[in-house]
């Protein structure tokens, strides 16, 4: 039940639209995380609008659905932008991000927001939750997959590797982990704060099928996300990305991890995204 078939132009247009939404909602909110939302925009757009993630807007709790776990919950705006674009939440909700009395919380809350698979925000937990889901779906012979998007800084959490061991041990080939490998965390470069070493080798050593891609190349993302499973092996897609991708003054700047743009910066950013992305009018 894929919602769309892969159409590069459509996905690119959605990604552009989502980037504008991310900037606009964060500017209105006055706080939040633009850098890691923008770095993940092409990945999330491909999942939702490239015919990868199987979901039914009218039956979000369908047991046969695929599940998307945003383990790097601080990138909530990218998820909210996708949910609005998919018609799961009203577009008008985006303006209420992080405001009292509105559904869009600073970090995703599954009890408040339709389409949020699980509340996240405490780093390092999403892969474990995804493993539990993937195992449950296997035990139920459900056809779906679980896609879990993590940050690279997040991999410093030891629990991620507890989950990785579990996934391989239990042969969870319906699990696809995605690392948004933008190389930055709040305190600076991942390599300076706490280096991760040889990431592909680490995941391979933990028993994963590893695919490395450019995380802003939508065709490469789509190909990686739709590569037939490697029977008996969980998969990780290491997506090299740029924090703040699409907004030149934010790109590869750790200071844009957790700071919202001002009105003026927001306008500059949206103008640049529009100029690069071309027509992104809602379909």
């Amino acid at each position, binding site marked *: 039940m894929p919602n769309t078939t892969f159409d590069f132009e459509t996905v690119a247009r959605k990604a552009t639209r989502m980037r504008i939404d991310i900037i606009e909602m964060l500017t209105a909110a006055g706080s939040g995380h633009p850098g890691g939302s923008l770095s993940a925009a092409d990945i999330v757009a491909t999942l939702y609008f490239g015919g990868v993630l199987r979901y039914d807007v009218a039956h979000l709790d369908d*047991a046969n659905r695929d599940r998307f776990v945003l383990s790097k919950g601080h990138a909530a705006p990218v998820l909210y932008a996708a949910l609005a674009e998919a018609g799961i939440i009203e577009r008008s909700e985006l303006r209420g991000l992080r405001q009292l009395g509105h559904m869009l919380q600073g970090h995703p809350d599954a009890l408040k927001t339709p389409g949020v698979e699980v*509340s996240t925000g*405490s780093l390092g937990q999403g892969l*474990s*939750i995804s493993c*539990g889901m*993937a195992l*449950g779906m296997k*035990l139920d012979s459900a056809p779906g997959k679980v896609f879990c998007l993590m940050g690279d800084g997040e991999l410093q959490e030891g629990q991620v590797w507890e*989950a990785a061991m579990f996934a391989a041990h239990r042969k969870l080939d319906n699990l696809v982990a995605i690392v948004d490998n933008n190389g930055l965390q709040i305190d600076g470069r991942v390599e300076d704060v706490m280096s991760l070493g040889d990431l592909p080798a680490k995941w391979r050593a933990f028993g994963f099928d590893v695919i490395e891609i450019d995380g802003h190349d939508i065709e490469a993302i789509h190909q990686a996300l739709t590569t037939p499973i490697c029977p008996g092996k969980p998969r990780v897609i290491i997506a090299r990305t740029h924090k703040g991708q699409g907004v030149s003054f934010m790109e590869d700047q750790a200071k844009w991890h957790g700071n919202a743009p001002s009105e003026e910066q927001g306008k500059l950013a949206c103008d640049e995204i529009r100029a690069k992305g071309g027509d992104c009018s809602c379909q």
Partner: protein
Amino acid sequence: MSVEKKATRAAYGETLIELVEQGHNIVAIEADLSGSTTTKKLGEAYPDRLVNVGIAEQNMTDIAAGLAATGRIAFTGSFAVFGAGRAYEQIRNTVCYNNYDVKIAPTHSGITVGPDGGSHQMVEDIALMRALPRMRVLVPADYASAKAAIALAAKTPGPFYIRLGRAAVPQVHEGGFELELGKAYVLREGSDVTLAACGIEVAQALEAAEILAQEGISAEVIDMVSVKPIDVDTLVGSVAKTGRIVTCEEHSVLGGLGSAISEVLSEVRPTPTRRIGMADCFGTSGSPDELISYFNLDAESIAQAARELVG
């Protein structure tokens, strides 16, 4: 009170098997302690119903959450210091924040873990769990009550903490006992002092009531198995009659049953109170019986607190 002793943990694996056989979609998740917690027998009977994650309690808790997200009733075991302590933030942000059907049921809590020593004797777990929104906290006194607590948690949606123990304890409830959430049970009526206890301290409180009776002091004994939600009516009704209360728990006096009762009564009906429990200290190695006396959690210590209140 029956003289035959049995540990509350003995109820765990076998009750889960019964619930599976009644058609409940139960799964138990363990962190390499399935023999100690008794879920091993569940795995032997129904291999798909036991998931062992190895020595990784944080992962255990979130795997349970993910399994609950696929429609299962997930029980996590381990020892309280790990299953509740080490995994606290997973319980908070994933289990409770999502309101998942996960039941935290560690089988080794309190000082009666015994010879393993203070590192393994969790005396802060009720405080930790009680503070969590959406969490319900049950501290059964005996085997029959533990069976009832496990069944109640399985049949009631949302997060639960069930505090089980390793030490063999006397039976204070009849077999087939059914537990009601938020209800306290008056096990012995009295008029001079209320002894409100949970877990293994219920048997000690009953013994204290016997000692006090010989001295002409009439003690009412209440099993406060449902620490959260707490039975305000039963508490207030009892102290309206006795005017004094001794709280008894195998847990720190900070944040546990004594705190919960003091919070309620100080607002609703201020009552002279003594709290029996761990006096803001860690445990130490010893046999369960030795430790209960050493840390003044025994019947005589409870009786002494009651005497002081009665004056």
